[in-house]
């Protein structure tokens, strides 16, 4: 499977970031496994430690399995002054997890991230590819419920 994704790109090192994105997106647990790292290393002809270095440098990649839905709450100043800390606490109680953890049912992973560029609607979070803004504690509850139901 990983080999198939690789072969869509020319075996040049500069395609690494795109390949890693695609591998991560295609995995149901949204992460890049050791096996994937090995495959990409062989395909591109670069050492596995280079790939691991890149992978751990950028915040969008994960080396650990994650939930079906990834919540990324913005913690940058514009969201912070609009109360993102309250939203974070609400999410942690609601999901019963700490930042970086996954719920027991594997449904959600909670992460923090830097500015998403939707500051007009601070505080903001992304769940997978969707942006949710003007968050309040009540709104967060509704959103989580909605996503959980699919």
């Amino acid at each position, binding site marked *: 499977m990983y080999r198939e994704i690789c072969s869509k790109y020319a075996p*040049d*090192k*500069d*395609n*690494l*970031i*795109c390949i*890693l*994105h695609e591998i991560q997106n295609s995995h149901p647990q949204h992460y890049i496994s050791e096996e994937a790292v090995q495959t990409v290393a062989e395909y*591109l002809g670069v050492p596995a430690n*280079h790939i691991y*270095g*890149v992978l751990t*440098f*950028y*915040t*969008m*990649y994960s080396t650990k399995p994650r939930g079906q839905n990834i919540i990324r709450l913005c*913690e*940058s*100043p*514009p969201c*912070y*002054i609009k109360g993102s800390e309250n939203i974070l606490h609400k999410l942690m109680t609601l999901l019963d997890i700490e930042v970086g953890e996954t719920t027991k049912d594997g449904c959600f992973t909670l992460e923090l*991230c*830097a*500015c*998403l*560029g*939707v*500051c*007009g*609607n*601070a505080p903001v979070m*992304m769940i997978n*590819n*969707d*942006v*949710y*803004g003007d968050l309040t504690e009540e709104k967060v509850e509704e959103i989580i419920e909605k996503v959980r139901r699919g």
Partner: protein
Amino acid sequence: MKFFRSHVLVGINETSIMAGVQDFIKALRLELAKHNLQEEINILETGPLGFFGRGICLSVYPENVNYQDVKLEDVTELVSEHFLKGRPLKRLMLDDGGKFSPKLNYSDRIVLRNSGIIDPENIDEYIGAGGYEAWEKALTQMQPADILAEVKISGLRGRGGAGFPAGVKWGFTAPIDAPQKYVVVNADEGEPGTFKDRLIMEGDPHQLLEGTMICARAVGATKAWIYIRGEYKLCIDRLQKAIDQCREYGILGKNIFGSGFDLDIFIKIGAGAYVCGEETALIESLEGNRGNPRWKPPFPGVEGLWQCPTVVNNVETLANVPFIIQKGAEEFMKHGTPECTGTKVYTILGDVAYPGLCEVDMGTTLRTIINDYAGGMKKGFRFKAALVGGAAGVILPDKLLDVKMDFSSLNQYAAVLGSGAILVMNEHQSIVDILWSILRFFRHESCGKCAPCRNGTQQLYRLISKIKKGKGTMEDVDLMLTIAETMQQTSFCALGQSPIMGVRSAIENFKDEFIAITKK
């Protein structure tokens, strides 16, 4: 061509998508059809309308009525009142029944001149608005040296932060005799509170492409890369569509317009690292490496992407170029001040009445921007401070509200201008708290390559956390200044050199607050 009685422009951006704009458009079409108005009223999906922040926004022409925060349930009333009876629906109008109307200065705009007016996904509309005229002129009527001269005369300075003259930057790369040169567009907008580049790309992606093309021609580059944040999904889609349309029309490709010049543009997606906004870190990332900055010199203009001469410019910088070539440097210089020509795009956030974006001449004061374009403070709030320029920015008190916003007037604070983020804070907000948030951001984003930044960002965060808890002393405050100053002098790249901006401006302008919170 078909003629319509009215055109309804619907702003499609992250904000309105969030508010359900797609369902809204469907409902609006159905309702218009119900009254048999589909041949009279045209619905146009466009980019950000120039005012935003509140849900779904519409502009109706030729009446020139702006609506905001329109909901699905308003569709019936809107159609029957405005489009059937011809009475604009006061309740939803942007100006709150005439109390305030944010300035929509379309005639004075350069970068956002088409944004909110044309359909950004349709190349014909861009061409209809005079698009690609400059590109054709640059290819068929001008020599690369002429383009370079025009941009130099215009005085266009980089809109990414440092304000380096674009023409001079291009001038390093142009004369080099190399088998391959590149143009790289820096669309890795990561400065907190900044999203002007997102709005430029969402509203008018073709203008950015055209600017990139002209730059490529001027320096002799045949390939260009747009390095864009992975989170900017809508921008990525729109730019890719725009590039595909250009290839189809022969605006990109081989032997463009029979000039013998070849050019293609590609998109590269980032993976979330603030430091990649630094041009050499961005180049590293493009090559498939960790985004650690490189030693300068050699500067990218001489040795950049894959060791080839490379011009790296910000989105807003390049989006200015078509205007300069099409209308001439003279026309461009009518905007702004003699030292800082042209306009600047700002995003205004926080406790103002109308958070939004605006494009104003360089040199406009912060007070004018807040009062005339954002409607002043939100009702019931008093101005305390503005964080200008995001995390790498400065915290300005009210006594500095009349400072002119241009690279020379802002002097020591000039680097903050590029990002164009203005975050307004009310009297209840704590400066220590906002500085804590800024320093937490830097601690996370330091790339770890050099010791001053790697250790300095950690220590600054430790100290501000201590102060925030009420456990710090004024010695800790002084120590923060010393650390930040040392970082400014010794860090490898602009990231480590930046925390001093926030630290110094917070401590200098709001010393009382630090005295109040620290132990005696």
